């Protein structure tokens, strides 16, 4: 039984923490929060690229470090702890995974090195309006290699160089590369619950589009990309949830009410205990997701769903009860609690909300128990 990070992975994780504590203090996050023109922190992005993290799970032949997926999970956990304001998820968990999953050698050779080097920011465009993405929600159309339609919201669509877009061709869904520099692409930056991340509306009018994966495979491929992204996102969420608990604990231990630290009141103690329990369950489910991802196990859809459901719940709970534990200070702009509350929703929605994933989890269970 070896159900934990290896010693090497723990070392990498520790180094990543030191690096991010130095390069990504709250002030960096607030730099993006308070500046509508800024969709991410360019210096941090550059530094992360130099660390090679963008290519951590990309094979060396394509310019990556070829470390493996658990190593990337460890990095994700640390990025989550500091609510890093960079397009890491869109580029690495979505775009790179999509290419590695469904791309031809030519695709890989062309795209992955530019991701690993930080030259390209990627994004993954699936939603077109309120509600879950379903086969019938796809209105974007590809005809004769040209994409026309609208995607909203697209995380990091305002700063990305390239997008993978879900669209119909001949009435069948597919995934398509689009160069966002194309004249047929319009971007509009949008206001969101988490201004520390960039989100855009992308409007395509006869934009050049190259298919990724087979014709008609688009929806299934999207789900497989979401499964992979969900595992990495779960590690970010676990990192954010743990940090929220630490913040709540630290404040409760220094704040006095009625002559006692509030950490000595049972209402606070049990609140923090509840956070701890949810966080541990989320971590354990995330580890299982990581194992399924790294071993490309048949259980991945089930494991990824469980990891995402547990982690989304844990981070949401920890981030809101961290504010509550801070009392009046907790809901001020100056105190950092709300950065985690915002990010909890951002991470909880970016690959689809809890409902979608609970449904995916149960449909997997039905299949398993039927068999």
């Amino acid at each position, binding site marked *: 039984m070896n159900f934990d990070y290896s010693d090497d992975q723990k070392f990498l994780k520790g180094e990543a923490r030191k690096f991010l504590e130095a390069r990504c203090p709250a002030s960096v996050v607030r730099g993006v929060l308070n500046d509508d023109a800024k969709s991410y922190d360019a210096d941090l992005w550059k530094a992360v690229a130099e660390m090679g993290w963008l290519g951590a799970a990309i094979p060396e032949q394509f310019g990556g470090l070829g470390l493996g997926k658990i190593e990337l999970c460890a990095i994700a956990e640390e990025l989550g702890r500091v609510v890093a304001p960079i397009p890491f998820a869109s580029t690495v968990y979505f775009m790179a995974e999509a290419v590695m999953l469904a791309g031809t050698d030519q695709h890989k050779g062309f795209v992955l090195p530019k991701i690993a080097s930080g030259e390209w920011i990627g994004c993954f465009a*699936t*939603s077109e*309006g*309120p*509600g*879950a*993405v*379903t*086969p*019938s*929600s796809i209105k974007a159309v590809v005809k004769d290699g040209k994409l026309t339609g609208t995607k*909203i*919201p697209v*995380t990091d669509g305002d700063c990305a160089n390239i997008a993978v877009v879900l669209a119909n061709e001949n009435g069948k869904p597919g995934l398509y590369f689009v160069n966002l520099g194309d004249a047929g692409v319009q971007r509009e930056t*949008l*206001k*969101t*619950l*988490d201004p520390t991340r960039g*989100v855009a509306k992308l409007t395509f009018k006869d934009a050049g589009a190259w298919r990724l994966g087979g014709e008609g495979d688009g929806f299934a491929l999207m789900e497989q990309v979401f499964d992979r992204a969900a595992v990495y996102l779960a590690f970010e969420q676990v990192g954010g949830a743990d940090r929220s608990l630490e913040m709540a604990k630290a404040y409760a231990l*220094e*704040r*006095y*009410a*009625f*002559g*006692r*630290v509030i950490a000595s*009141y049972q*209402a*606070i103690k049990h609140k923090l205990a509840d956070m701890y329990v949810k966080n541990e369950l989320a971590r354990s489910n995330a580890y299982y997701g990581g194992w399924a991802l790294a071993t490309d196990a048949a259980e991945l859809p089930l494991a990824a769903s469980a990891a995402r459901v547990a982690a989304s719940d844990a981070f*949401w709970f920890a981030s*809101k009860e961290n*504010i*509550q534990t801070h*009392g*009046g200070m*907790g*809901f*001020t*702009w*100056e105190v950092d*609690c*709300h950065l985690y*509350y915002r990010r909890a*929703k*951002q991470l*909880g*929605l*970016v690959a*689809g*909300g*809890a*409902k*979608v994933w609970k449904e995916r989890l149960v449909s997997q269970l039905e299949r398993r128990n039927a068999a």
Partner: protein
Amino acid sequence: MDFNDSSDEAAYREKARAWLSANAKKKRSDASEAMESEDNASMKASKAWQAKKAAGGFAQITWPKEWGGPGGTPIQQVIFNQEEANFDVPPNPFQIGLGMCVPTVMTFADDATKQRYVGPALRGEEIWCQLFSEPAGGSDVAAVRTKAVREGDDWIINGQKVWTTGAQFSDFGIVLVRTDPDLPKHKGMTMFWLDMKAPGVEVKPIHQMSGGSSFNEVYFTDVRLKDSQRLGAVNDGWKTALVTLMNERLAVGGSTGTQYGHILELARGVKTEGGTMLKDGGFREKLADWYVQTEGLKFTRFRTMTALSKGQTPGPESSIGKVIAATQMQDLANAAVEMEDQYGILNDEELSPLKAAFQSSLLFAPGLRIAGGTDEILKNIIAERVLGLPGDIRVDKDVAFKDAPTGR
């Protein structure tokens, strides 16, 4: 068991309705209550409306004639509030002043002061704020450290208050200060009223995560008060404060932010493969729970009104409102945002459903769960005042305030 007014109440409701129709416009039914807005335009309107109400005998209806009120009953005030809620009237920035501060002044100030200040406050010409909470206080209201030192016939105030609603537009305030740190916490405090424009008073708005600034920090640097501004005896300030706080409960309003009706409409519009989210079994269960809570609170208020209507003091059931409403606001907003799925991250009045009302609620709710008593404090209050359970063990009760543990 019915919802009917007594004949007196019906007559009064008629009178109120008639006056309101003559003086204000009916509200559009679909409007969801705004959660924060106090710009200058609405302030002008608020003052004008308050003046009208005072002239019409509908401001502070329970106040006796000598103070410019019509000398009405609590149930009449409730009836007027109900009717007023159906009209499109400006926000009411006078509640704290007229509900809590001025009654304290009426009880403890000298005649000259009362003659000078009560009338203008009633007519909305002058606004009062309440300066109790401090950074080190929070839930512990009596942990007052702002100092007042006697200097001949004057008092010199130094320190800081926080979470002061409306300080930025208030003309006057009542302030609780520490006059003897050698006495235990609840002794050694004294209450004063003061001019918010006096030298040494500085108001700084608090920027909330929701974007708004309903609260302020107020700094006092060598602010000089006359002893005649004292409300109640020296070191007897907690007794005075209890008179002020007694009235706070009544100030608890109805429902704000997004409600079950709003999310029902959202669900009707969100498509699924099967149809719309309104058909989802999980959503329907949650919707039923929210309905039961919201209507349960409404009917609980009706029970309170019944007591008032019978001239009795309302029972403890009135204390459950905020603890339910605040948590529900957060859960419901979260459910709505989740229902919008990826799109829910948008917080844009043009693009988001219901002008992003759910997103606003999501960012406002954390504050609502804290301001005016945290969930935890409210449950303590229910447990202690309603159920009669013992208070928690107090280590700061009988020691000199300056010696009580603070971690500093």
